[in-house]
């Protein structure tokens, strides 16, 4: 097959995907998005015309969203499609979508004012986590242990020059056991998952969290598949936390997955699996 890879930065993941595709006899066409002129009222550019599908790999959320939409507009099949990238990039939409499909999520309240945020936190009980509805790598997420903390956080948020910080996404803090779980959803299957350990309450490996292999339990597979189906993937990274009672909650779904730490600690050829399964799906 002819596979396009839309990217803006070559990370370990992009290298692994290119190598995996070539090893399986596919032709790879790198699409360097920052240099692309996307004429949305024009025809599909000749060099992209015969691609069987494109893997969207931009590290920038807005470039990923824009380039996937443009490529789809040209009639190309993109994994993941821009609707999936858009919905996963918005924590509020993600939570609503997951909840409406019966996926367990922590209790979450949206407030639009300082007073509303205080009321929401009282309802949830401290500690609470306040998250930007758009954001990545755990940036600008804050944990409030008390009403004083929350008021400080809200004051910072209200002074931000970006309006979406005035939509307060407030979530119960799940007392997780020093780790969370990153599980991978690939076309309805769950090939691999890892624990991410950290002494901090944020366990993102981008913030120094330590990855370790984990077992694919029946419950983990079931919740991951349900979450991936709810978001309409494709190829997704599902982030989950375990409650003290052992229940799993989905806290986030990622549409442009990072997996180098998973490959490093499990030895699993996730890039190869993504290429093989996506090619199979595209042949249908």
């Amino acid at each position, binding site marked *: 097959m002819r596979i396009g890879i839309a*990217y*803006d*930065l*070559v990370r370990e993941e*992009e290298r692994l995907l*290119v190598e995996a595709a070539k090893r399986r006899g596919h032709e790879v066409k*790198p699409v*360097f998005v*920052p*240099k692309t002129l996307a004429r949305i009222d024009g025809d599909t550019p000749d060099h992209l015309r015969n691609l069987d599908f494109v893997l969207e790999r931009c*590290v*920038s*959320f*807005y470039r990923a969203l824009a380039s996937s939409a443009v490529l789809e507009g040209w009639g190309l099949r993109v994994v993941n499609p821009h609707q999936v990238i858009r919905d996963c990039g918005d924590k509020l939409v993600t939570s609503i979508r997951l909840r409406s499909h019966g996926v367990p999520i922590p209790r979450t309240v949206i407030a639009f004012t300082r007073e509303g945020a205080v009321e929401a936190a009282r309802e949830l009980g401290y500690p609470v986590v306040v998250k930007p509805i*758009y*954001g*990545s*790598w755990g*940036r600008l997420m804050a944990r409030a242990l008390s009403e004083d903390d929350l008021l400080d956080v809200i004051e910072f948020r209200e002074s931000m020059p970006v309006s979406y910080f005035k939509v307060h996404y407030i979530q119960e803090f799940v007392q997780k056991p020093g780790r969370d779980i990153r599980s991978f959803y690939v076309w309805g299957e769950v090939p691999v998952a890892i624990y991410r350990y950290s002494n901090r309450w944020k366990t*993102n490996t*981008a913030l120094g969290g330590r990855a370790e292999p984990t077992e694919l339990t029946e419950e983990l597979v079931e919740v991951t598949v349900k979450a991936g189906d709810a978001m309409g993937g494709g190829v997704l*990274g599902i982030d989950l936390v375990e409650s003290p009672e052992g229940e799993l909650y989905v806290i*986030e779904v*990622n549409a*442009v*997955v*990072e997996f180098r730490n998973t490959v490093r600690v499990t030895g699993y050829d996730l890039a190869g699996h993504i290429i093989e399964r996506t090619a199979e799906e595209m042949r249908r």
Partner: protein
Amino acid sequence: MPTLSCPVCEVGVEVPDDALEGELFECNACGAHLEFYLESGKPRLKLAEEVSEDWGE
């Protein structure tokens, strides 16, 4: 394997033949993070883009 000039300290940086535009390299002399790109088809290095608030998962 071409050797390209670091835009910061002008010391040569080796870049593999199969480098892709957007690929990152580090200058061993000054430590600058550099991005490989093509300017009118000619290989070049420039300072890599800073991490933006919308980068990552």
